[in-house]
């Protein structure tokens, strides 16, 4: 019997029903414990974790947090109770108590390692478009040049690094060489892009996209998507992320890294039964993994934790904060030890501005924020429009063609412009940093006087190179904006952080240079005169780029605190927290005024995931009675506690699609007794039928009756009855109902009036009602 139970999918098949009212063969004490808690059945299962069914929920279903956490408490008590029985159990208890920490430690280590590998790989592959390091083909351009011992190398070239034209024997600076370089660039990009989309399609279609809307927000709020966090997704997403970034597409690897970290968390959680077998507990690990993902993506552990708190946490905002922080820190530490960024700073873009900002500059910063909000809103609208078009038109049938076309267009248009040609992260780095006296690019072509070393950097009027660079940057801005709209949402791994930052940094740098020249040309304006001493530059154009990046990111994602903290950690400087905050705030307000939701929420709504935003406030006058099902005298499927026969219940199961049924006292007095899940009922009835229970048997949800029965012996089903369903009255305002759904993690709640059962509200009913209130077409948004 033990073997059969283990093999059966639910742990209930082994139930023996030999003609009389039966309880499961449990020791008295255990049964007492199980029954005592109103946990819906599966008592024997919780006693023996090995026999527990693996897949508790169906695909695309929502989990019931209360139930899962009750199961976990039960399991915990079982282990504590067994402590005295032996050394092995003691070890097991210890392992159980610490498995959470052990698990996040492993997640942190693996996530840090994988991020390091991806980072090194992406940097190498990116430079492969331009040339190769023949001495050591595994080095990218920078490394290759450093490994040579030349102290000075001018501009772009060092002797160790061979661009493709050089390898193929053409002159580097001839027209033919340029065409050859162009050709190699485009061919490489096409090759990598094609490979990425084919790999995704062949091995793991779920690996496409950013992953943050689906995974962080929806899955952590309790939705089940099977296979979304699997091994293949991890592998393919990691590899294709590198390929896609190296193909020169306008996308980043930061969002996908969060998805990859969550895959790692999911896989490692399976090694710990406490987490692997309990969907609600598993989400604690996933939340920590998301923090680790952001932490390694930006080198920002605190920002990562805040991101996981702000964007991801649903049921347990504070309980796992400490553990998430630990996970984020470990992963950042590991990544730092691998040291893929090549310097001692644990951040992605190391910025070190020298000058404090002056108070007046808050004005342009807020202006940047407003621009960021407008750009964000425009981007969201265009992107959602395009994605909806892709979803509904025939375009969606040709993912490979789409990727190839976009890659081709991007590569063709990007190469002629030096700023769009360079990798995005490098461009951001250039824009974020000020021009030192020794830099040689166009953007830093200031009219400086190097004759005397004893002076500080003096008035730096812009040379012609700067104006050329500004034009080029403006073109890059338009180009990136357009191309990102088409890129985000294609069927390859694609993050949005880096493209947004490129947009913002370009915009910010342009404004910054403008301000700088303004201050130089009109040094006696009252706004400048107080702070800018004559002959010294008081405007940091790199800071404007940083602030602009934060503003556009804020406009696109509508993140708040976590974004500010990430930007502060990213640039490693606390002194600029006020400008960043001002810009993000302006961007958020302007963005919210122009379009209600951020890009992630917009994608969630587009796909119709059942996600109830935990920050939004609802302001409607609806009552529970307006939302519940059934409303208009439609018959309501309920089970009576002791008067329905097995065949009646079976026919009801066949006729309806509900996931659960309330149990009431009787048809006449519909006072609520409890709630029973369809799944449990199905299994129990199937088991009973197998054991020969006739259809005329009564289903009993009350305590075992005394005395003899006239008909066939009844089927005792109290075990699978949840005696503590959450109920509300029909006069409860919708805000309270939503609050309960969000905070208690409910799957459904029962509506009563004076104790009498009236109906049921599920999460989807609430979402449907909210959609309905927004006077949007309901049919267009199918919730699955």
């Amino acid at each position: 019997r033990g073997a059969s139970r283990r093999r059966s999918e639910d742990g209930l098949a082994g139930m023996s029903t030999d003609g009389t009212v039966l309880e499961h063969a449990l020791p008295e004490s255990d049964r007492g414990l199980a029954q005592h808690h109103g946990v819906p059945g599966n008592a024997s299962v919780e006693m023996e974790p090995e026999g527990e069914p693996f897949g508790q929920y169906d695909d695309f279903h929502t989990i019931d947090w209360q139930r899962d956490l009750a199961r976990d408490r039960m399991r915990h008590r079982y282990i504590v109770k067994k402590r005295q029985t032996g050394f092995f159990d003691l070890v097991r208890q210890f392992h159980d108590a610490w498995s959470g920490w052990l698990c996040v430690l492993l997640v942190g280590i693996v996530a840090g390692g994988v991020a390091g590998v991806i980072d090194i790989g992406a940097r190498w592959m990116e430079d492969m478009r331009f040339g190769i390091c023949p001495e050591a083909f595994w080095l990218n351009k920078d490394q290759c040049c450093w490994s040579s011992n030349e102290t000075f190398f001018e501009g772009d070239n060092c002797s160790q690094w061979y661009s493709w034209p050089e390898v193929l024997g053409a002159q580097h600076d001839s027209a033919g060489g340029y065409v050859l370089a162009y050709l190699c660039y485009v061919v490489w990009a096409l090759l990598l892009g094609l490979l990425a989309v084919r790999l995704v399609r062949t091995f793991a279609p779920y690996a496409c996209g950013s992953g943050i809307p689906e995974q962080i927000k929806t899955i952590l709020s309790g939705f089940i998507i099977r296979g979304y966090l699997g091994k293949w997704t991890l592998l393919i997403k990691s590899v294709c992320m590198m390929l896609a970034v190296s193909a020169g597409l306008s996308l980043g690897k930061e969002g996908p890294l969060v998805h990859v970290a969550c895959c790692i968390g999911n896989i490692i959680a399976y090694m710990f039964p406490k987490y692997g077998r309990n969907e609600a507990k598993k989400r604690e690990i996933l939340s920590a993994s998301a923090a680790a993902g952001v932490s390694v993506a930006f080198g920002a552990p605190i920002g990562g934790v805040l991101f996981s708190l702000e964007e991801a946490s649903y049921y347990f905002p504070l309980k796992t904060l400490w553990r998430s922080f630990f996970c984020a820190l470990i992963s950042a530490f590991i990544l730092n030890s691998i040291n893929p960024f090549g310097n001692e700073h644990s951040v992605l873009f190391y910025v070190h501005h020298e000058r404090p900002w002056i108070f007046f500059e808050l004005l342009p910063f807020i202006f940047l924020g407003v621009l960021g909000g407008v750009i964000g809103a425009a981007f969201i609208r265009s992107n959602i429009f395009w994605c909806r078009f892709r979803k509904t038109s025939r375009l969606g049938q040709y993912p490979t063609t789409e990727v190839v076309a976009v890659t081709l267009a991007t590569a063709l248009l990007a190469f002629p412009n030096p700023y769009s040609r360079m990798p995005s992260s490098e461009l951001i780095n250039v824009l974020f940093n000020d021009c030192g006296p020794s830099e040689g690019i166009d953007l830093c072509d200031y009219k400086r006087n190097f004759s005397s070393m004893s002076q500080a950097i003096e008035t730096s009027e812009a040379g012609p190179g700067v104006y050329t660079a500004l034009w080029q940057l403006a073109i890059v801005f338009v180009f990136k904006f357009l191309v990102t709209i088409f890129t985000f949402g294609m069927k390859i791994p694609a993050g949005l952080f880096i493209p947004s930052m490129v947009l913002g940094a370009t915009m910010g740098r342009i404004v910054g240079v403008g301000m700088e020249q303004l201050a130089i040309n009109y040094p006696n304006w009252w706004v400048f005169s107080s702070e800018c001493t004559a002959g010294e530059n008081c405007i940091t154009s790199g800071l404007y780029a940083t602030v602009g990046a934060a503003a556009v990111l804020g406009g696109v994602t509508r993140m708040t605190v976590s974004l500010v903290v990430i930007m502060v950690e990213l640039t490693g400087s606390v002194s600029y927290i006020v400008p960043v905050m001002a810009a993000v705030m302006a961007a958020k307000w302007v963005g919210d005024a122009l379009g209600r939701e951020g890009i992630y929420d917009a994608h969630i709504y587009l796909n119709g995931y059942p996600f109830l935003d935990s920050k939004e406030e609802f302001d409607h006058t609806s009552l529970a009675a307006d939302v519940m099902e059934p409303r208009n005298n439609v018959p309501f499927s309920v089970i009576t506690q002791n008067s329905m026969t097995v065949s009646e219940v079976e026919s009801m199961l066949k006729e309806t699609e509900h996931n659960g049924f309330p149990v009431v006292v009787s048809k006449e007095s519909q006072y609520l007794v409890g709630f029973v899940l369809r799944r449990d009922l199905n299994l129990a009835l199937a088991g009973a039928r197998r054991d020969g229970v006739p259809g005329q048997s009564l289903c009993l949800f009350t305590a075992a009756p005394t005395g003899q029965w006239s008909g066939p012996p009844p089927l005792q089903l109290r075990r699978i009855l949840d005696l503590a369903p959450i109920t509300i009255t029909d006069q409860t305002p919708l805000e309270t109902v939503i609050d309960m759904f969000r905070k208690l993690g409910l799957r459904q709640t029962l509506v009563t009036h004076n104790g009498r059962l009236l109906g049921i509200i599920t999460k989807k009913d609430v979402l449907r009602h909210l959609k309905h209130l927004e006077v949007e077409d309901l049919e267009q948004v199918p919730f699955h």
Partner: protein
Amino acid sequence: MLSNCDNVILPELPANFSKSREFCPLCECKFESRNTTTIKVVVILIICIISVLVIYMTFLSCLDPILNQRRAAASAYQQQTDDEDDLGGRMAQPLYEQGGVLNRVGNRQDRWKRQVQEQRNNIYVRRTMLN
């Protein structure tokens, strides 16, 4: 202004100090060296993974249809049993173990393929996800 190479050291150095031009880049690049062995291992690893994936992909798209025809009958039967409930699954269990290791690998592969097919349906055909 904080202490920084360009602003603090250069002005203070005497004019006859020979290497003043070189000093600042040195300062900044001090830590910009990394362990190239790690890079070597990682890059070779990545190349290997991509090669294996590409080979497997070509195998799946070229050879697999041929192989599949041979296993079609068994696969169809098994898919059917898997779709039944656990009662059926229990009966089908011995069948799984008949064919030895090769068959079991094949079975697992089939199950994985069905999962991927399901994912493809969701994304490319039904388009209910990830748009």
